[in-house]
C-alpha cells in the first residue's frame, strides 16, 4: 500500500485532489444548501423487511424490483438471441427481399429513440397480443393455483405477468436489432473456404449454415453478445415507463412515497452497478479462460 503511494507523481496528487474536491463540494452543497436529511437507516427495510404478523423475513420493493429486472433481462436476452440470430441470418441471405426486410427492421430500430420504440411496441403489439391470447385471465388463474410457487419463482407475482411479458417482449424486439448485427458480423467473419468445404461434401445451404457456419460464428461473437447482455440490463430501466415493475419503477414508487430521493436512487444505482460490473468481470474471466485453453 505504501509502495503504491510512493509511486504517485505530484500530478496524480493534483488530479486526486480535484476529484475529491469536486465531490466534497457536492456533498457540502447537499448538506449546507439543500438542507437534505439523510435517512440511510430506512433503506435496509425496503430491501428486506421483517413481517411481524407472519414472523418471517420477506423481500421488499427494492429487492423485488431487482429480481424482476434479473428475470426480465434473462428472458429478454434469450428471446433477443433467438430473434437476433434469425435477423443476422436474414441479413446474410441470398434472397434480396429477405435481406431488405431485415435491413428495414434494423434501420427502424437503430434510428428511433428506444423510448419511442418501446411505447410503439407496447401499445400496438404487446397490448394487442395480451388481449388476443387472453393472457390476463390465464395468469390470474395461475395465481390461484396450488402450484403457483413454481410460476412465481420464474415470473414473480403472477398478477403482474402480462406487464412482465410486455416488458420482455418489447425489450427483446429492441435488442434483437443489435444482436442481429453482432450475429451478422460473426457469420461474415467465417472464411469463405468453410462454406466451400461444406458444399464440397454435398451439404445444402441449411446444413452448411447449421453445422459449419453458425457454430463458428456464434462462438466468435460470444464476447460482444455478453456485452450486449449487460447493455440490455441497463436498457431494461426504460421499460419502467410502460409500468413494468422492475428495479427502476420500484425505485420511482419508493421515492414518491417516502421522499428518500438520494438514498433510494443511490441504492438502485448500486444494485445495477453490482449486477452489471459483476457480470462483466465474470465474462472477462470466462473469456480469458477460453482463450487460454484454445
Amino acid at each position: 500500500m505504501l509502495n503504491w503511494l510512493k509511486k504517485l507523481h505530484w500530478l496524480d496528487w493534483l488530479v486526486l485532489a480535484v476529484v475529491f474536491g469536486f465531490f466534497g463540494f457536492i456533498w457540502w452543497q447537499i448538506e449546507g444548501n439543500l438542507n437534505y436529511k439523510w435517512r440511510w437507516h430506512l433503506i435496509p427495510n425496503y430491501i428486506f423487511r421483517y413481517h411481524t404478523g407472519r414472523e418471517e423475513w420477506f423481500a421488499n420493493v427494492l429487492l423485488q424490483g431487482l429480481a424482476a429486472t434479473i428475470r426480465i433481462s434473462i428472458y429478454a436476452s434469450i428471446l433477443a438471441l433467438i430473434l437476433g440470430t434469425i435477423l443476422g441470418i436474414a441479413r446474410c441471405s441470398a434472397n434480396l427481399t429477405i435481406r431488405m426486410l431485415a435491413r428495414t427492421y434494423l434501420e427502424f430500430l437503430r434510428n428511433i429513440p428506444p423510448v419511442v420504440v418501446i411505447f410503439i411496441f407496447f401499445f400496438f403489439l404487446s397490448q394487442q397480443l395480451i388481449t388476443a391470447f387472453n393472457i390476463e385471465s390465464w395468469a390470474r388463474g395461475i395465481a390461484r393455483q396450488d402450484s403457483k410457487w413454481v410460476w412465481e419463482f420464474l415470473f414473480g407475482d403472477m398478477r403482474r405477468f402480462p406487464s412482465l411479458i410486455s416488458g420482455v417482449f418489447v425489450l427483446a424486439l429492441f435488442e434483437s436489432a443489435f444482436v442481429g448485427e453482432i450475429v451478422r458480423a460473426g457469420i461474415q467473419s467465417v472464411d469463405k473456404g468453410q462454406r466451400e468445404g461444406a458444399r464440397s461434401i454435398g451439404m445444402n445451404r441449411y446444413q452448411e449454415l447449421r453445422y459449419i457456419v453458425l457454430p463458428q460464428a456464434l462462438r466468435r461473437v460470444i464476447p460482444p453478445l455478453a456485452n450486449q447482455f449487460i447493455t440490455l440490463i441497463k436498457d431494461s430501466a426504460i421499460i419502467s415507463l410502460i409500468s413494468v415493475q422492475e428495479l427502476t419503477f420500484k425505485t420511482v414508487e419508493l421515492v414518491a412515497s417516502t421522499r428518500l430521493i438520494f438514498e433510494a436512487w443511490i441504492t438502485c444505482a448500486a444494485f445495477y452497478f453490482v449486477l452489471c460490473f459483476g457480470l462483466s468481470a465474470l465474462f472477462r474471466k470466462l473469456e480469458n479462460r477460453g482463450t487460454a485453453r484454445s
Partner: protein
Amino acid sequence: MTGGTPIIAFDNVDKFYGDFHALKDISISVREGERMVICGPSGSGKSTLIRCINGLEFHNSGVLTVDGVEVYEGSKNILNLRQEVGMVFQQFNLFPHLTVLENLTIGPMKVRKASREDAEETARKYLDRVHIPEQAEKYPSALSGGQQQRVAIARSLCMESRIMLFDEPTSALDPEMINEVLDVMVELADTGMTMVVVTHEMGFARKVADTMVFMEEGRIVEVAEPEKFFTNPESDRCRAFLEQILEH
C-alpha cells in the same frame, strides 16, 4: 487406362467474371479412372476449371456433364453431384470447431444420413489410409499442415466419392510436408480413383498422370500424355513454362 466412358465432359465451355473471360471455349473430357494433371501459370483458369466440375463456380455457356448429369446454375442435382465429387483445397478448409473424426463423419452423417457407428468406422478406415489414425480426437489446429491436408483428403474419401478434385493441394504446405501428401495421393491413384489435379508438382505428375493439360489465359493450350508432354511439348509456351518450373 485407355477406353472407358467420359465421366467429365466439357463442351465449348466459357466462363466470365464480369468482363474477365476466365475460361475460353474449353472442350475436354476425363474418362472413368483417368488421372489428369492440369498445370499452367497463375491466373490461367486452372482452379476455375476444376471448381466448375463440382459446381462451386458455374460456367456461362457451353455444356458441362459430370457423371451423366448436366451441371448448370440452379440445377437440382448439384447437391447429389457434390457427393460423388470430392474436393481438396489449397487451404484445406477443415472445420476448425470439429475434431478430426467429426470433420470426417459430419458429411456421411448429415448428408448421407449414415449412422454414427458406420460413419466412424468409415472415418477410421480412411484415417488409416492417410496414415494418421492416432490424430482422430484432436482438433485440426493441433495438426501440421501436411496432416491437415491428409485429413482433408480423408474427409472427401469418407463421402465415397467416385471423382476427386485437387486444387493445388500442396501449395500452402511447408516443403518438408509436401511429400507426405503426395504419397497419399499416389496411393489413391493406385486404387483407380478418377482424379483431376491442379498442381505444379511435376514429379508427382510424371508418376501418376495419364493425361497432362497445360492452360494459359483461360485456354487449354496443350493436352498430351506425360511422356510426350515433358520431353517434347508442341507449344512454345508450354515448353517455356516447363523450363521455368523444372530448372531447379
